[in-house]
């Protein structure tokens, strides 16, 4: 391998990695925001992405609605669905037995329900492709080839993340979410309505999942099992420290770039291993993740 080729591969790997990494970053954000405010890793995140993808597909292809209706409708449906699940199912589970394990199991239940439902409708039987939001045209950035669709994906993801961070940092509701994440009891004592905050957090997480679905669906084949892409969101979240939102974003981009570099330099068959090697390396060197802060000792 000559130096020229190495240089070319590096450019291509980083460019493609940033594009797919931006989607992983969104997925990681969706996971971390729920974990931060309720200590629950949401194992139905992938199926939320999948279900949102099929809602969009249904409206667009089978109902022939225009894209400018399909996109907000999908995001809203995902927001409402996730918020209602939190309010109706998880609140009930929490009241019956407050241990987080039961909540985690309930999210697993949701993942099976969603997958079963999509299988039942029959849409998931044949792998389908989602029509791209923009007509893909090839563009060269340096020596890296990307498509206009790639640029739209990256730009949308970055804008969504920026809006999310702004909301988290500067709005009253965002501050309340941070307060719940730091100390739920103190948040209640200043008058934060926990039920409402949890609903909004789940809704946001669902909405972000829907955006990720809209971005990724033109690039992948849709099946009822496409939710497994969230594994990479989990990988990104773990690399970033699992409780850090900026960490989730950095982790997402890192995983995307590592995947692509491994694919180019080693073998495309090694891609599936790359995220897990990255997780192991990070956990060995820095057990709390890149942005995890100090390790806290909990009293049991």
């Amino acid at each position, binding site marked *: 391998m000559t130096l020229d080729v190495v240089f070319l591969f590096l450019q291509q790997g980083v460019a493609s990695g940033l594009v797919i990494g931006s989607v992983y970053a969104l997925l990681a954000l969706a996971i971390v925001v729920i974990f931060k405010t309720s200590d629950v890793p949401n194992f139905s995140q992938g199926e939320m992405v999948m279900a949102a993808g099929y809602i969009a597909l249904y409206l667009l292809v089978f109902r022939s609605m225009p894209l400018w209706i399909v996109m907000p409708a999908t995001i809203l449906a995902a927001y409402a669905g996730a918020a209602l699940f939190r309010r109706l199912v998880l609140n009930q589970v929490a009241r019956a037995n407050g241990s987080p394990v039961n909540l985690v199991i309930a999210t697993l239940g949701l993942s099976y329900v969603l997958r079963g439902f999509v299988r039942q409708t029959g849409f998931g039987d044949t792998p389908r492709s989602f029509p791209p939001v923009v007509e893909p045209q090839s563009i060269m950035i340096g020596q890296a080839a990307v498509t206009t669709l790639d640029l739209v994906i990256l730009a949308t993801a970055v804008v969504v993340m920026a809006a999310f961070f702004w909301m988290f940092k500067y709005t009253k509701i965002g501050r309340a979410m941070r307060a719940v994440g*730091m100390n739920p009891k103190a948040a209640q*004592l200043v008058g934060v309505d926990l039920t409402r905050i949890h609903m909004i957090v789940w809704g946001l997480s669902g909405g972000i999942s829907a955006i990720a679905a809209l971005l990724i669906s033109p690039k992948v084949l849709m099946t009822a099992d496409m939710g497994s892409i969230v594994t990479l969101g989990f990988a990104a979240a773990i690399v970033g420290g699992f409780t850090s939102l900026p960490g989730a974003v950095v982790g997402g981009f890192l995983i995307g770039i590592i995947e692509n570099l491994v694919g180019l330099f080693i073998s495309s068959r090694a891609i599936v291993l790359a995220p897990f090697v990255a997780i192991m390396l990070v956990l060995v060197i820095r057990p709390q993740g890149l942005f995890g802060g100090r390790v806290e000792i909990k009293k049991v």
Partner: protein
Amino acid sequence: MPDLLELAGVSASYGRIQALSGVSLSVPEGSIVALLGSNGAGKTTTLNTISRLVPVQSGSIRFDGKAVESMASHKVVEGGVVQVPEGREVFRDMSVRENLEMGAYRRKDAATVRADFDRVLDYFPKLRDRLQQRAGTLSGGEQQMLLIGRALMARPRLLLLDEPSLGLSPVLVQQIFGIIDRLNKDGLTILLVEQNAAVALSTSSYAYILENGEMALQGASDQLRRDDSVRRTYLGH
């Protein structure tokens, strides 16, 4: 003075463990009432049933004539009953300023919130120099001041104070209780939970003593201070 807060026969439990059985107490408007007892007697649980963090099994809680026992916790805060929790329950990764602003979370009157912000800093001038500092890096005494300040930002009519002296040096305890006294003189009604019975009895006008989740003794604070059994058990002489 009419009673601002009235508990009648309140019981509460954690799973199978009975934490409170039939607790009754009343807090007249404008007073400081102390709730004493040893560790695990149910003092904090009593406050948490009032704040609606612990469900009430039976009995009634009335604040200003309104039934509290079935309200949501944020409605209790909105109604003017605000708890200063025990320990260091600040929002660690927020600045001191953000912590104080969180205290006014349920208020919509921006102008008076700003005025109250200044008033709180007048009570606790030390916090003024630390407004941008992360709350988790404050000393124990400063965190206690921040907690009281945060509660004041909600404009309470009744302050529930849980162990404000916990883990503080005698000098700081004196300082904090000086401020509690001032707050009361400025018109705030206070229900004070303490293990430090000596300080609590000299600050309050009336006191209740809890034992194993039941009300064991009550009376005017000066009387309890002279009571032999109280002196032996709670004052250590």
